[in-house]
């Protein structure tokens, strides 16, 4: 039969956490040498600790982490509220149960009540008027607006038309699908945006629309005297820049980047992240157009901003742009830095190819082969073979 536990067991944790004084530590150690119960307990605690720490790691993969980072930075920039936990399934279950119980009760009552006793549906006073007038409740809003802290905006709805007026700042709007009799309009100082059911961001700076980005659905943008622009999901409209001075043009050969050290104008914190989205789109556009040096500089600026959800991709695309510009060694250098900065990058293999290709051209076969080692199985894939070039055959 097991005896009573040692009354000094509580000192085990105190000793482990360093809460005992020097004298008490010595005293406890002497006690443990003589106390089998404490020794067993220490062993069991440690075994449990080790076992618990070898439980399977349930940490998320890289992709959900990156997706959440993008969501977090976007929401933080827009000043959106923290996530509301989705209880819709439970609410739906509750609603179904409530309806079932209600229906059963009604059926029971109805079964006992003669049909003639049922009251007319309309009160006599309302009978002469049309139903909508008689019963028109205040209309529920179709759009949900998240605004940046300093944004100036308002939202009204009447007779099936909802109007959001944005004077300054950034808002993110989610609009439920509109029926054929409904309209949803966002009025900006220099135009209007019409949507049917969508989620999008719009930014107004200094009284003019500067950017519209659509996440889902379609919006129509009518700004100033320009033709109507139709934006689909993942498309961004950016206002053309005002005519810059000659000196300003020279200074901005690289895309502007928010500088946290310099005093900022009183803009909402929405701006940095929103600007980075635009910067990224602009850098991609430069790459597509073949403006490789400008694209590399733009991607470099994005890669430097740790709050940018694009930092990983931008860092790799900087290397791609340099490679396309024919600057193989510079591309390899940037690709190496990308691999060091983002060891779990999705572009790991492609970045390695850029590094290996440059090494192979320099005749540094050892480096080329080491870089491509993770992808050198029994048979080489074509792109790995190309990256190794002459080093493929060398011992």
């Amino acid at each position, binding site marked *: 039969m097991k005896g009573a536990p040692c009354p000094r067991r509580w000192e085990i944790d105190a000793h482990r956490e360093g809460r005992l004084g020097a004298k008490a530590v010595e005293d406890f150690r002497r006690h443990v040498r003589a106390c089998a119960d404490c020794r067993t307990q220490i062993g069991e605690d440690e075994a449990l600790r080790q076992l618990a720490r070898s439980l399977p790691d349930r940490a998320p993969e890289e992709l959900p982490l990156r997706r959440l980072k993008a969501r977090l930075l976007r929401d933080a920039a827009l000043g959106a509220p923290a996530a509301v936990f989705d209880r819709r399934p439970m609410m739906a279950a509750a609603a179904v149960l409530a309806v079932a119980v209600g229906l059963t009760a009604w059926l029971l009552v109805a079964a006992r009540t003669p049909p003639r006793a049922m009251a007319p549906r309309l009160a006599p006073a309302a009978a002469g008027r049309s139903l909508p007038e008689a019963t028109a409740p205040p209309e529920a809003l179709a759009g949900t607006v998240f605004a940046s802290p300093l944004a100036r905006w308002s939202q009204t709805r009447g007779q099936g038309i909802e109007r959001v007026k944005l004077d300054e700042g950034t808002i993110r709007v989610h609009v439920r699908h509109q029926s054929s009799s409904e309209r949803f309009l966002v009025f900006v100082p220099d135009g209007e945006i019409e949507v049917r059911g969508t989620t999008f961001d719009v930014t107004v700076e200094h009284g003019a629309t500067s950017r519209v980005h659509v996440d889902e659905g379609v919006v129509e943008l009518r700004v100033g005297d320009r033709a109507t622009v139709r934006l689909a999901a993942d498309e961004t409209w950016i206002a053309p820049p005002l005519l810059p001075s000659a000196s300003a043009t020279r200074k901005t050969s690289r895309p502007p980047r928010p500088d946290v050290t310099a005093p900022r104008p009183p803009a909402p914190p929405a701006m940095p992240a929103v600007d980075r989205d635009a910067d990224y789109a602009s850098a991609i556009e430069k790459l597509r157009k073949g403006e490789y040096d400008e694209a590399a500089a733009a991607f470099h600026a994005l890669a430097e901003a740790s709050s940018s959800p694009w930092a990983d991709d931008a860092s790799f695309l*900087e290397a791609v742009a340099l490679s396309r510009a024919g600057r193989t060694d510079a591309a390899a250098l940037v690709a190496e830095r990308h691999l060091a*900065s983002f060891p779990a990058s999705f572009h790991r293999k492609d970045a390695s190819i850029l590094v290996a290709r440059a090494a192979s051209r320099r005749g540094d076969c050892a480096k080329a082969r080491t870089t491509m080692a993770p992808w050198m199985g029994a048979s080489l894939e074509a792109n790995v073979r190309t990256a190794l070039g002459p080093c493929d055959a060398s011992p």
Partner: protein
Amino acid sequence: MTAYPHAVRGRSTPDPELVLGVASGDLDALGELYTRYARDVWRAVLRVLPDGAHAEDIVHTTFMKLPEIAPSYDGRARCRNWLCGIGVRLALRHRRGSGRFRRMLQAFADVVVVRPSADPERKASNAQELAVLERALAKLGEKKRAVFVLVELEQLSTEEAAKALEIPPATVRTRLFHARQELQEALRKGAAK
């Protein structure tokens, strides 16, 4: 030729400085803290919510709340531990909320809560013990489990866990003691089978 220095701003910045940055609305600082610790917070939250539901939303909320609560960070606890503590506390709150809701539903009608079974393909050599421990951990009361996760798995000190859960350190020790007892008992029973 253009030089391309690649030192990412913030990567070498100490945590307390980043927390201060977040308090003043610096998104770069928020992004950097997320990159450093989101995985740890997510893991701790998943341990507290055995079914894993809403873990992503809880991690999101943890970091979204940072600008608001950053001024309360006194720099004494490690930032990672502080964030894990916040995540676990939010997970507990969420669990209590959804628990109340489930109880309400159960009062209405019998609701069967299906829990995912343990992974059958566990590769560790002590697979059976791990499976027993995982089940026992899932059965542990939420308060005891939160303390066990923070102290034994995430390696917070008793004081850090107490601060994170807003309870006295003595309560942390008591809950930890009972959590260990229950888990060890479960392991003993598992071994005896």
